[in-house]
C-alpha cells in the first residue's frame, strides 16, 4: 500500500475520529528513516493500549511500531495473550486467529502476499508471548524456521502466562514459584535463542526493551534480513511487573537488572554470514543516502 491510500474522504472527514485525522496528517508511513525518535513528534501507529499501567509490553509495542521499515506494507500476526488486547488499537493490519498457531498463519500469509504482490515487499511480523511461542506453539514456531519462511518472529518474553494470571511457562526461570509450579519451576528456562539459531534463523537477537535505540536496530535488522535471507527471531524481555510483585514504575529497573552482566537478558545476537553481509551493505547504502541528502542540490 502506498501512503497515499491513507487519506480522508472529504465528505466524511467531519465524522472521522480525531485520531484518524492525526494518522493521515502526521504518521510516518512512507518515511524510510522512521524510528523511535519520531515518538512524541509524529502520530504513533498505536493509539492506546489496554495493558496494565507501567507494563513494559506497552513501551515495546511503541518502539516496534515506530521502528518497522515500511509499516504501510507490514502485516502483523498475533496470538492469544496480553498482546492480543493491544492489536485492535494499531494502524497496521493484524491477524489474531488462535492460540499458538501464529507462525503457521504467518507462513501461509507471507507466501500468499509474495505470490499476489511479486514486486512489492510485504513484511509479515509475528508478535506473540512466550506461552504462544515456546509452549503451545513451539512446533509451529520451529517448523516455520526449518522451512525458512521469510518473516520475523518477535517473542514478548515475560517469563510466564500473564494474561491468564501468572502460570509457569517454558521461558520462566528455574525455581520461580508460580501458579502451576507451586514448589518452584523445576527445569531451566528454555534456550529459545539457541534453538532459533540451530533451527535456521538468519538473525537472532535477545534484549530487553530498556533502550529504544537497541530495540529499533534489532527490529530493523530482523525485518530486513527476513526479506532477503530467511527467518529471523527477536526475543524481548518485557517483565510482567504485576506477577513478579513489582510496582508500575519498576519495570525499567527490572529490565536493566536483567540485562546487566550475569543477567538472563544480556544482549546477544546470532547473525549468519549472509545476513551480516546484507546488514553491512544496508548500512553503507543508508550512510551514502544520508550524505547525499546533506549536499546542496546544485553542488
Amino acid at each position: 500500500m502506498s501512503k497515499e491510500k491513507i487519506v480522508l474522504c472529504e465528505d466524511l472527514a467531519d465524522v472521522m475520529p480525531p485520531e484518524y485525522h492525526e494518522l493521515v496528517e502526521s504518521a510516518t508511513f512512507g518515511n524510510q528513516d522512521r524510528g523511535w525518535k519520531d515518538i512524541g513528534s509524529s502520530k504513533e501507529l498505536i493509539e492506546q493500549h489496554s495493558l496494565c499501567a507501567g507494563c513494559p509490553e506497552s513501551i515495546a509495542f511503541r518502539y516496534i511500531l515506530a521502528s518497522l521499515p515500511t509499516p504501510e506494507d507490514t502485516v502483523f500476526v498475533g496470538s492469544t495473550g496480553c498482546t492480543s488486547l493491544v492489536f485492535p488499537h494499531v494502524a497496521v493490519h493484524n491477524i489474531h486467529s488462535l492460540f499458538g498457531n501464529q507462525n503457521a498463519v504467518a507462513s501461509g500469509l507471507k507466501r500468499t502476499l509474495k505470490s499476489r504482490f511479486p514486486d512489492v515487499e510485504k513484511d509479515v511480523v509475528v508478535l506473540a508471548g512466550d506461552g504462544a511461542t515456546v509452549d503451545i506453539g513451539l512446533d509451529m514456531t520451529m517448523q516455520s524456521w526449518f522451512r525458512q519462511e521469510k518473516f520475523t518472529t518477535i517473542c514478548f518474553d515475560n517469563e510466564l502466562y500473564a494474561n491468564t494470571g501468572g502460570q509457569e511457562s517454558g521461558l520462566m526461570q528455574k525455581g520461580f514459584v508460580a501458579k502451576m509450579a507451586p514448589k518452584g519451576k523445576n527445569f531451566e528456562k528454555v534456550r529459545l535463542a539457541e534453538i532459533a539459531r540451530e533451527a535456521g534463523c538468519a538473525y537472532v537477537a535477545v534484549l530487553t526493551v530498556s533502550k529504544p535505540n537497541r530495540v529499533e536496530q534489532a527490529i530493523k535488522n530482523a525485518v530486513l534480513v527476513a526479506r532477503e535471507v530467511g527467518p529471523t527471531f527477536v526475543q524481548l524481555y518485557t517483565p510482567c511487573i504485576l506477577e513478579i510483585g513489582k510496582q508500575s514504575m519498576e519495570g525499567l529497573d527490572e529490565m536493566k537488572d536483567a540485562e546487566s552482566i550475569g543477567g538472563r537478558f544480556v544482549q546477544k545476537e546470532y547473525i549468519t554470514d549472509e545476513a551480516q553481509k546484507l546488514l553491512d551493505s544496508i548500512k553503507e547504502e543508508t550512510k551514502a543516502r544520508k550524505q547525499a541528502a546533506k549536499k546542496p542540490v546544485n553542488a
Partner: protein
Amino acid sequence: MNKQVELKNKRVIASNHVKLGQKNQKGQTYTDINDIFYKAKQTPNFLTGSEVIRAAIKVASVGTSVAYPITPQSEAAALIGELYAEGYVDEYFRGESEFAVMGQCAGAAFGGHRVFTTTAGPGTLRAMENFPMWAGARLPIQVCVTCRGINSPLSIQPDTLEMYYLLETGMLIWHAETAQDLFDFILKGFIVAEQPDVHVPIAVCCDGFFVTHTKDTVDLPPDDLCLTPYDPYRNPQPVMDMETAPIRMMRDPFIMKSNYISYATHASWQQEVKAAVERSRKHTIPLLDGLIDEENTDREILIVGSGTAVSQAREAIRLLEEEGIKAGLVKIKTIRPFPYEEVRQATKNAKHIFVPEFNLAGWLAREIKANIPDNERVYVGPHVAGGMTMPSEVIVEEIKKHLGMEVATRGTLG
C-alpha cells in the same frame, strides 16, 4: 429462512474481476462456472476419487494448497503437489500437522488466496479448533474431508462420524455420493462459499475409500477451461494485505469485557455466521439443482440418506421392487445448510422413513427427526461403522423387519 427460492432466471455469477475469456499462464481460459458445467462438452473419464480431486483442482484456479499425509486423502494431497509443480497452483507445501495446516490455510486466505486442502478422520479432529475460527473470520477456505474412522483402537476405514463434529462449526457442509458429485461439489463449492453474502468455509465431504479409492466414470469439462480466480476484495472483511487503509478496530477488545455489549457482539456474530450459511441456499440451489434429489417421494416407504449410503439405498430400492415393495428415495446433498423445508416436503407422504448411515451416532437421522412432524416415522438405521460396507441386502432386511415382514434368517448389523 427455509422459504422456497424462486429459481427462474437465477444464475450464479462467479468472480469477474479478471475478465471472462482471458487466459491464465497455463493457457486455461477463465470461464463462468455455469458455462463450465452446462455449456462445455463433458467427456467421460474412468478415474479414482483422488484423481477426480486432482482434476477439479487443475481447473479451480487455486492460490494455495497445504498438504499433510493421512489416509485416505494422502494420494489426493500429493496429486495437488504435482499440479503445483506443473504451475496450476500458485503455492503448495507440506505442513507439520493438521492443526498447523489449517492455520497455514487461514494465513493464505487472510492474505487473499483461494485455498484448498484435504484431511480425514483424526486429522479433522486435530484441526477442529481452526474450523470455527475460519468461519468466524469469514475465510472461504475449502477442505475436502475424506471421512474415515476416528475411534480408538486405530482405524483407517471409512466411517462418517467426523461429519457429526463438523455440523456446528459454521462451515458449509456438502456430502458427495459419487466421484462425479465430488468433482462438481469441489468446483461449485468454491463459487458458493466465495459469494460476498456467504463468504464462509466449506467442507466437501466424501466417504473415504468408497469414493477416494474406487474408480468411477466421471464426466469432465475440458481442462483448458478454469474458474475465474478468487477476488479477495469481494469480501465482508478487509483482506490482510495492507492494500486498504488500516482501521482501529475497537476501543476495548471485546474479550476484555464482561458486559452485555460484549456478549451481544459475540452472539450476533455467531448468528451472522449461521445466517451466512443459510444465505448460501440461493446460490447453491441453481448450481446443485436443489439441496436434495428426490425419487418417487409419493411412496409410503422412503429412504433418506447422504453420501454413499444413497448408492446402497438406490440398489436396495431395486431389490425391494423385485419383491413388489415400492420405496422412494431422498438424497441430501447439503448437510449445512440443512434442507429443512425440502425434507419436510419430500417426506410428507411417507409413513416409514429409513436413514441408513455409515456411523453409529446416526446424526443424519437426528437432523431429520428434529425437523419433520410426526418423527416417530423415522427409523434410525440401518447403521454400519468402523469400515463395514453396507450391503443393499442389509437395508432391505432392516426395512422388511421393521415393517413386520418375513426375512431370511441372518445376523443383522443394525
